[in-house]
């Protein structure tokens, strides 16, 4: 797409689209971070109990009865996957931020009431959130 003939509306639209994508990424990261935190808490709890204890794991609608020592490695692996996913998303977020800035400079877009990287802190601040369904209480 050549952008020499972009109208003002189209520029704004493109900009908003990028911003929306950035926001979606940030929310996704926050979700994953909280998921990661939840995994951490559960792993911690399981590490403190006997490995032979009965423990259930839910996989896509199927609850399988296992033991703690069987579930723990699966959980750790899962956590690692989430971690690398978060890393990937974070990279994407950084790239998106760069793209956004480049777009801003190129089309001379000014944003009211916000400065350059006002979006960034969100993903960091949300890291200690956790879903309410479990019995564990987060800090």
């Amino acid at each position, binding site marked *: 797409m050549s952008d020499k003939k972009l109208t003002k509306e189209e520029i704004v639209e493109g900009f908003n689209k990028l911003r929306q994508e950035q926001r979606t990424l940030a929310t996704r990261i926050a979700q994953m971070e909280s998921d990661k935190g939840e995994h951490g808490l559960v792993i911690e709890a399981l590490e403190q109990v006997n490995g032979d204890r009965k423990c259930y794991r839910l*996989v896509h609608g199927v*609850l399988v009865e296992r033991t703690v020592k069987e579930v723990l490695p699966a959980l750790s692996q899962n956590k690692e996957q989430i971690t690398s996913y978060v890393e990937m998303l974070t990279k994407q977020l950084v790239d998106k931020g760069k793209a956004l800035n480049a777009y801003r400079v190129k089309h001379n877009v000014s944003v009211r009431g916000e400065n350059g990287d006002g979006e960034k802190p969100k993903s960091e601040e949300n890291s200690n959130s956790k879903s309410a369904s479990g*019995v564990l209480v987060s800090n």
Partner: protein
Amino acid sequence: MEGDSKVVESKPHLGIPEAVFVEDVAKYLKEQGSCTCEEALKKLEENYQKYKLMEVNLLQKKQRLKQQIPDLKSSLDIVKHMKSIEGTDTTMTTNFFLSGALHAKAKIPPTKEVCLWLGANVMLSYSIEEALGVLNKNYTTAISHLDSVNKDLEYLRDQFTTTEVMLARLYNWNVKQRRAAKATTNGSDSK
């Protein structure tokens, strides 16, 4: 809050910085490292946004706790009851929440085991005694967390007020300053 002093106690509110209130704007600017008024305004604005972000997070946390607490309380009550009939041959009948508006009936044979949902798609089996301990502990923790979240929110609200007042002051001061500057240049022009 014990609140027995006339001075605001600077309790540690988990990393929430205190907003400062200064009467003398010029002095304030000097304290901030002799920055321009615009810079100071921007900084305050930033702080304000940060407070807002913290508020959002705290409110989320509060919401979560408010959901969790009654659930923990019910779990605790039920397990307490199970403890009281443990060892007898009492079968409990329950009408449990299946989905939406739908409840179904089940009989719970005498049991020494309950399962607690830990999160991350994992459920752990507990003896009744143990479950009682875990639930009790988590219930108290959740309540004290809610309490501290509420206090943090209150504290945050004060920081909002202070920052708002400071913003207004700085803004007014800035306007006055500019007007004064304009007046002097106009004055010198006309001379």
